[in-house]
Every structure is written in C-alpha cells, then in structure tokens.
C-alpha cells in the first residue's frame, strides 16, 4: 500500500515533467495542484467534510424539538393542521437525519487519517468525550428514530411521544459532547502535559471549560434559528404558490415567532461569547475586528480590506470607538492588535469577513422576523413582498452558521488546541492521495445538497396531497402515506 502511494505521487510528478519538458523546469504549482502539501489538503478536505456535515445537524437538532411541539399542539387541540405539519416535517427530518448520519461517519475516519497528531497528543481528553457522544447520543437517536418514524400504530401514543423526546434529547446531547470538545480545544482546562502528551486531571474542568457554556448556547440557538427560517421559508413558498391548507399558516407563524424570540437572545449570547473570546483568545478578536495595532477607542469596522503584507486595512469604513464600546463596554477601552501576536495570529481575511457575514445575516434575521411578526399581528395576512423575502432567507441559518464556524475555527489558527498543539504538527506526514478523494467528496456533496434542497421543496409542494410515489405506498389509517 505504501508503495502504491509513492507510485501515485511519482506518476503525478512524471505527468508534470512531461508537460514542462525537463525535470529542472517542473512547474511546482503543477505538482502542488496534484499533491499539495499534506497540511493544506488535509485542512481543505476536513473543512469540506465538516462544513457539509454541520448543515444537517444544525437542522435536525432543533427540528426534533419543533416536531415535538407540533405533536404537543395536536395532542392539545386535536386540530388536524398540526398533524399535517408534523407529517410534512417529519419526512424532512428523516431526510436531514440520514444526511447527518452518513456525513458524520466520515468524520470518525478522518480524525485519524487527516490529523494523526491530534489524537496522539490530546487523545486522552478528546477520546472520552467522543466516546461518550457515540455511547450516549448516537445510539439513542438512531434507535428511537425508528419508532419515531415508523412506530405509529405499533406502539402506544405515549411510547411514540417518548421516542420523539428521546430523539430530540439525543440530538441535543450529541451537540453538547462535541461542542464541549470543541470548546476545550479553544479554551483548554483541567489537563497536564506529560512528555508532550495531554493527560486529564479534572474532568469537570475539561467539560465545563471557560467557553463551553457560551458555545453550546450559541450553537443551539443557531440551530433554532436555522430551523425557524427553514420552516418559515418553506411555508412562505407554499403560501405564494396558493397552498391554502390550514397547516401552512400555522407553520409560518410558528417559524416566525421562534425566529423573533430567538434572534435577540442569540445576539446577546453572541456578545457574551465574544467577551469570553476576548479574554481567552484575543488574537481571534483582533482578526474579527481587523485591529492591527493595539489601540484605545478602536472603531467598529463595517467594511475594510485587511492587508496582511502591509499589516493595515484599506477602504476602512467604521463607527468611531465602536469596537472598544462593544468589547470593553467603554469608549476608550483598549483592544489588543494583531501585531501583539507575531506569527501566532489567524489569517485575517476569512475571520474578518466571516464575522461580518454572520453578523450581517443575524441582523437581517432580526429585521425579517420582527417585521413579519408585526405584519401578521392579530391574524393579518402577510404581504407578498415579505413572503418572497422569507423564501429567499430559507437557508439563511446555514449561511450564518457556516460563517460563524469559520470565524471560530479559522480564528483558532495557528493552533489546533489553543496553546497546546499547532495544526501543522497534527497533520499527516504521509503523502496520502487526498486530492483525488477530495474531488470525489466535493462532487458527491454538491450533488447531495442540490438533491436535498430540491426534495425539501418537492415534499412541500406535495404536502397533504397523495405522495408522488403513492403507487408504491398504501395510505394508513391516519391518512398518512407510507414511506421508508
């Protein structure tokens, strides 16, 4: 196998040599295009996989609770619209969950293949957290999902509700474990280093490390907002198509209300999370705010073009003293600049722009949901322009979530585990043909995202009507359609 890999690289090299005519004139960019340095490729591949993966848990975590809400409303009111809502969204949940599971399996393999140094250095902390996630959450979700999806009529109403609760608990629990680990990587605590390896000394300190509470809340709220906008967007789209079934109005209202309540909470939690980061990872904040030199009364930059070679911003437009006010809660508060962290601060552009995309999307969410709540006050029909806006924002949660993750993960660089392990030291030293597998993964992901979005809207179009595959399915007693 080892031989096979080196032949593969030789073949790339030969191809490049043939193109340039002589071995001395080999265009290094050509070689790099095929077998880029392992660190860059390992990072691109891991980022692609984890970005694809997070799309689906960010929906299923909160959608499980929303489904429980629909079920609870139906139980209370016996109004068929809530059961219709449940029936549509449980299908979308099943699809989302499946995509989350299969993309998550990939992760369990890539931890070791792409980052061998990670487990070898911090495995004593990361291992138990990952193991607990699998043991306490994955099996719970995957097993009770069967009863939640297919158990109606086979188990009592009460057991079915219990199964739905357990699936919802499982998804949230899984988020808790993985975010506890991620937070530990950002703000490590409760460990000691022996011969360069991390050993756990205090599990409570590891679990409840300084950034964990904020990160968990921030992500759970992000999931809530992602689902709120997904539900509102799909419902708005159904309304615009002239779908007048009663469940559409109800799900639209539910989505908008959830968004309107969660978004101010999210902005508040985000602010606290930022203060926490300022304390523990000041270089990340400096990159987010685009502050190069330590200064008092730093402006809040609305736009700028950070330039890492000249170490300054171009075209900066900002609110004077804004950053100091937000971060220090005083107009001349000191904000440390990137120059204080020579060689140890993250790449500025992705963090700086990622942060602006996240905050910008958040503000749009605030405007759209509050406007919607006001437009629909007292049971009024919402106007079409607003419905169109909500359709456009169907996947706004994905944009904000991804942008936020890029800020916090790229913002942690050059560290993989802050102050303990550099990303470069954890990457694989072996020349693995990542390039080829990366191309395969990217093609598959693009295909699956297109399929997912189109099927979500297809299901919404056929909601309530006999399903497209009805010929192969038999309606059951509650009037639902069969499906696997």
């Amino acid at each position: 196998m080892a031989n096979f890999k080196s032949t593969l690289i030789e073949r790339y090299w030969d191809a490049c040599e043939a193109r340039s005519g002589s071995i001395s004139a080999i265009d290094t960019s050509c070689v790099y295009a095929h077998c880029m340095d392992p660190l860059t490729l390992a990072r691109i591949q891991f980022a692609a996989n984890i970005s694809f993966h997070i799309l689906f848990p960010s929906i299923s975590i909160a959608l499980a609770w929303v489904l429980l809400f629909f079920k609870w409303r139906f139980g209370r009111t016996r109004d068929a619209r809530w059961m219709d809502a449940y029936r549509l969204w449980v299908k979308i949940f099943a699809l989302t969950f499946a995509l989350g599971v299969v993309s998550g399996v990939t992760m369990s393999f890539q931890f070791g293949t792409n980052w061998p140094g990670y487990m070898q250095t911090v495995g004593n902390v990361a291992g138990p957290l990952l193991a607990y996630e699998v043991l306490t959450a994955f099996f719970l979700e995957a097993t009770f999902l069967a009863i939640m999806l297919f158990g109606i009529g086979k188990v009592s109403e009460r057991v079915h509700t219990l199964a739905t609760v357990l699936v919802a608990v499982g998804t949230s629990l899984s988020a808790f474990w993985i975010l506890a680990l991620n937070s530990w990587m950002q703000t490590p605590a409760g460990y000691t280093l022996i011969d360069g390896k991390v050993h756990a000394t205090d599990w409570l300190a590891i679990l409840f490390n300084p950034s964990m509470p904020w990160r968990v809340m921030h992500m759970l709220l992000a999931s809530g907002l992602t689902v709120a906008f997904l539900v509102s967007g799909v419902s708005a789209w159904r309304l615009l198509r002239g779908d007048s079934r009663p469940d559409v109005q109800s799900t639209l209202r539910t989505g908008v209300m959830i968004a309107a309540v969660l978004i101010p909470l999210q902005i508040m939690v985000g602010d606290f999370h930022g203060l926490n980061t300022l304390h523990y990872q000041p270089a990340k904040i400096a990159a987010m705010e685009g502050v190069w030199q330590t200064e008092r009364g730093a402006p809040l930059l609305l736009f700028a073009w950070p330039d890492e070679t000249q170490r300054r911003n171009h075209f900066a437009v900002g609110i004077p003293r804004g950053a100091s006010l937000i971060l220090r809660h005083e107009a001349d508060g000191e904000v440390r600049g990137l120059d204080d962290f020579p060689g140890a601060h993250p790449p500025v552009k992705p963090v700086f722009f990622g942060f602006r995309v996240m905050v910008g999307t958040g503000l749009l969410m605030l405007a759209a949901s509050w406007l919607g709540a006001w437009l629909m006050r007292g049971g009024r029909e919402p106007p079409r322009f607003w419905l169109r806006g909500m359709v456009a924002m169907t996947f706004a949660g994905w944009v904000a979530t991804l942008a936020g993750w890029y800020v916090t993960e790229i913002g942690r660089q050059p560290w993989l585990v802050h102050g303990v392990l550099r990303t470069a030291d954890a990457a694989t030293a072996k020349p693995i043909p990542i390039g080829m597998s990366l191309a395969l993964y990217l093609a598959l992901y693009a295909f699956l995202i297109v399929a997912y979005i189109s099927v979500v809207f297809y299901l919404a179009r056929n909601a309530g009507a006999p399903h497209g595959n009805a010929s192969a399915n038999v309606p059951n007693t509650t009037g639902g359609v069969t499906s696997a």
Partner: protein
Amino acid sequence: VPDLATPAGWLPVVFMVLMGIALLLYVVLDGYDLGVGILLPGGTDKEKDLMVSSIGPFWDANETWLVLGIGLMLVAFPQAHSEVLSSLYLPVVLMLIGLMLRGVAFDFRVKAQTAHKPMWNRLFWAGSVLTSAAQGYMLGSYVTGFDASAAARAFSVLTALCVPAVYALLGAGWLLIKTTGGLQRKAVNWARRAWWGALTGFIAVSVASPLISTRIFEKWFSLPYVVLLAPLPIVTLLLLLIAARSLQRLPTRIEQGNDYGAWVPFAATIGVIVIGFYGLAYSLFPYLVVDRITIWDAASAPESLMVILVGAAVVLPAILGYTIFVYRVFRGKVEPLSYG
C-alpha cells in the same frame, strides 16, 4: 506483554474485546442490510419497496456500530487508528462514499420525484456493493499487514469478492425471515447462489491466509494449536451445510405457507461470521497492525480508558436493551412502512 494485573496491562485487552464486539455486531447487523441492498435489483418495484421496508427501522442504528468500533479504535488505540486507516486510505474513501450513497438513497428513493426513483434504487444498490467490496478489500489488506506484493493484492481482491457474497447470503437469510410468498421464494434462490460464493470464499481464504502469512501459518499449524483449532473450520463447514440443507427444504414449506426453519440460513451465516471473526482475532492477537503495533503500544493513557470504560459499562447494557426493544416492536413479517 506487560503485567495484566495493572490497568495499563488489562485495559487495552478489554478495549480490544469491546472494539471487536462492536465491529462484529457491525458486520452482522449492517451486513444483512448491505446484503439486502446488493440483492435489490432482483426484486420487482413492489418487492423493492418491501425489501427496503424490511431494513428501514434498523439500518441507521446498525451503522452506528461502525462509528462505535472505529471510534473505540480512535480513542483507545489512536496510533493504530491513524496507521491502519492511512494505510487503507483509498478503500476507506470508497467505502465512505458507498455508505453515503446508500444511506441517502434510502430516504430519497421514496421522497424524491417518482421519475427519479429508479435512479435512487440504482444508487442504493451501487452504494451497497461499493461499501461491501471496499470492506472486503480492507479486510484482505489488513490481514496481510498492508503488504503491497502482487500476491497480497490478489488476496485482497479475493476478499473484496467474498465479503459481498457473505453479506448477500446474510441479506437473503434476513428476507427469508421477514417476507412471504414470491419474495420469500426469490430469497431462497438468492441465498443458494450467495451460498456458493460464501463457500468458495471460505475455502479460498482458509487456504490463502496461511500461505500468504507465515505468521498465521505458524499460529495455526503448530502443535497443539492445530488440534485445538481444528473445530473452527469443521464447525464452519457444518454451519454452511446446515444452511444448504435448510435452503433445499424451504421451497416446499414456503409453498405450504409453513415458515418453520426460515431463520436457519440467517442464523447459520451469523455463526460462520462469528467463527471467522474469532479466527481472525486469534491470528492477529496481540497485534493491531500485523507484526508492528501491539494493543499495548497503541493504547491511550489508562486513566482515560478507565473513564470510557465506566461510561461503556453503564450505557452499553442500555443500548442493547433498547435495541432489542426496537427489534421486538418491528418483529414479524414486513409490511409497507408508514409515517404516522
């Protein structure tokens, strides 16, 4: 071998056993649903729906055993995890792509436009075949210690053909239990064909592995082990014969609507897999990477393993409990699945 009375000595052994059990459960459980996927093209449209329905409530949790097995390797033997999976990089990628395709095709095939259903059926089949073959290749490559010689490569190709055959036999056995009538009769025929594949595979692997690895040869063919281990291949052959006999009798019984013994081929195949797994573990112990890394070389710190062990001791019985509960809820012959 370190002192087994110390945690650093016995914890890695316990974790090897746990990892082994998780992977064995994975092979048996996901094996039957992968097998059903491999057999899918043989069914009519209606039968395809039933075949998929028969595994619908289970496949998700079945796949989780793989995450647990690989996860235990990652957390308990991190060095072996990166060594093994880096050496198997390409087949692992192919397996993951196969797993993704079948996992999503499973859901898309009934939710997407009717016109797209045949495409998702084909992807479900292709993903199942790709996953099984890649796992077979990995098995061969692992047993030969990632040797790159032509002989070792040929051996891996051989195992890449055998594993899908065994999964197909398992899947057909599952369908014998879960279906009736025409589909059940078809399952008998599929099982018969897969049986020959499994038998050929069993003989070929038994003959080839001692030839390809002198270490395995010495472990199996030195006294007294050759006598002590002799029951393993004999029982395997017996189980295969029991399956064959059952497959001969089943068609007449099915005609009479008699389901007696429909579970025999499935159970016999599980027996074969368990014995094969034990033989593999015996051949390799105490190495995680043949002749290079032992379980003690690769193990994480004892205090961290202890933390995981406590959790596993509490949670695993619960997992087994609710898994059995779900299998009971969905016991009996398959009916078209319905969302409430």
